[in-house]
């Protein structure tokens, strides 16, 4: 899906014009407003859109870490897209979950370095990956500070909402 990055769909959610913007153009405030709405409704941490020279980035206010993961129901026996979800905390580890359904990318763009590798120590708010939905690249920030112990999702694979993406050992 990533090869179709500049088809007609991409601009619909942001409502912009199809072709290159220039420095003198009026600021696309309506687009920004929509992105803000989308960020709020979807619960993601950040949305970034780049289009030619235009780049809009919307980030959520840093929140107090949530008291715990949302309850996970027993997985029924159907062929779900996702793997069986491991419990959020195993051996004191913390799972960073996907705030939206989409395609998981470990790097900001094809050919670039992954945001993080196993063994990296990250700060809360630091981007860990991208989840793409409808051609929008959503940077997923870490919700805690700690060490990356495991990457749970496959690069360029689908992830569900609330699916664990990384396991982190929280900072002592």
């Amino acid at each position, binding site marked *: 899906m990533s090869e179709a990055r500049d088809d007609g*769909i991409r601009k619909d959610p942001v409502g912009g014009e199809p072709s290159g913007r220039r420095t003198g153009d009026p600021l696309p405030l309506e687009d920004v407003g929509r992105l803000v709405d989308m960020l709020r*409704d*979807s*619960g993601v941490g950040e949305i970034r859109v780049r289009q030619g020279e235009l780049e809009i980035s919307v980030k959520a206010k840093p929140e107090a870490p949530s008291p715990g993961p949302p309850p996970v129901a027993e997985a029924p026996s159907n062929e779900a897209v996702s793997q069986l979800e491991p419990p959020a905390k195993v051996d004191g580890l913390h799972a960073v979950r996907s705030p939206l*359904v*989409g395609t998981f990318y470990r790097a900001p763009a094809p050919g670039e370095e992954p945001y993080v590798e196993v063994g990296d120590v990250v700060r809360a708010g630091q981007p860990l990956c991208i989840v793409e939905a409808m051609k*929008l690249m959503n940077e997923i920030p870490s919700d805690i500070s700690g060490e990356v112990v495991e990457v749970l999702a496959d690069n360029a694979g689908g992830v569900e*909402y*609330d*699916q664990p993406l990384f396991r982190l050992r929280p900072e002592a």
Partner: protein
Amino acid sequence: MIGKVLVANRGEVALRVVRACRELGLRSVAVYSTADADSLHRMLADEAICIGPPPASGSYLNIPAIISAAELTGADAIHPGYGFLAENARFAEICERVGVKFVGPSSRVISMMGDKSAARRAAREAGVPVTPGSEGVCANAAEAKRVGAEVGYPVVVKASAGGGGKGMRVVEDESRLDAAFTEASREAGAAFGDGSVYIEKYLEDLRHIEVQVLSEAGGKTAAFPERDCSIQRRYQKLLEESPAPGLPEEARRGMMDAAASLVDALGYEGAGTVEFVYSGGEFFFIEMNTRLQVEHPVTEMVTGADLVAEQLKIASGERMDVPSSAAASVGGHAIEFRINAEDPRRNFLPQAGPVEFYNPPGGPGVRVDSHLYAGYKVPPHYDSLLAKLIVFATDREAAIRRGLRALDELAIAGVETTLPLHLAILEDEDFRRGGVSTSFLARRELRNDEGLLRLVPAGASPG
């Protein structure tokens, strides 16, 4: 041809679509919010994907999440069910643009029928009688007054973008029109982001009668025998039946023909419902719902058609399996009871929480469409519909007796439901005679009678 259908909904209608897919050999994909992780639609679909948090805005109304889910699972069609995104023209348009087949009419038709004054115009142009009133939107109160004088009072001011009674005002005489126009317009603006209103003659003692249609978009069109949906509470349908009791054959044919004409004129594709008011022997178009309706099983029971399977066949480019024009009734009578998680003894307070015991009725002439099971937790985030009980019998009297029997068997423990209200309706003399108007419930009060509910005339002294 479609091969895999994403069901962009939850609850009983998601199950309904999953069932139809399985029977047609199509793969189904359920989407669900974290609040619905234990839901039957998730468990019974071939695949399931979590699309967001409990609030519908983040999940079942979250267009990017649903489109992503379709892309990730390789679904080539999306069935929207009813509610949520089913009449969202933008969603249909996005589906069209990403090349996923939207099971329903084109975004253009959804958009036109969503604009009530445009829909009225389309109906009039197709030769369908519409309630006397303004040609389109009324620009201002002065124009409204001109229309009022023409059609006679009372009139009703309605929001063009409206539905569910919002932005609507009944006006008894011209002196009150100015204020009503302003209020309705303001309310419509707040609710729908569009303050346009139009004027219709206000009809009293009307019945809500609707015609189910199926159309191949340029191919065959079928209009089905009508449904009577006059039992409503605050514009929400509660009980529907087919055929409409005592409806003259001429009116039935008239509505079916009118519905078919409109659908043909629109180049409509798929299933839809043309709604009429019926009053004093005349019928008038009010609006068209461009989707499957909650009450579609009533039509399925009396005609033997499988409307959801037909929707999917049409979306797949196949021919539908129903006779062209007016499918014949098999000659019985069907009634649907909506079992909502609302407490009729406490002003229909919505209920949530675990269903401790659930016994759906069985036996002859009984159909249950429900996502309930013993142990299911009713989440507080969504629509209150828990189950649809549909009964079928050779005639209306037998259907009512079967309904009483089946409602008596149906047991739901843990949450209060509208079940006792349905029992009370079936015991009501006017209802049993048949043909009551939409004011049936408004003119009655609920009275507790040794644990059972009874309907008594509104304002009657305690019995």
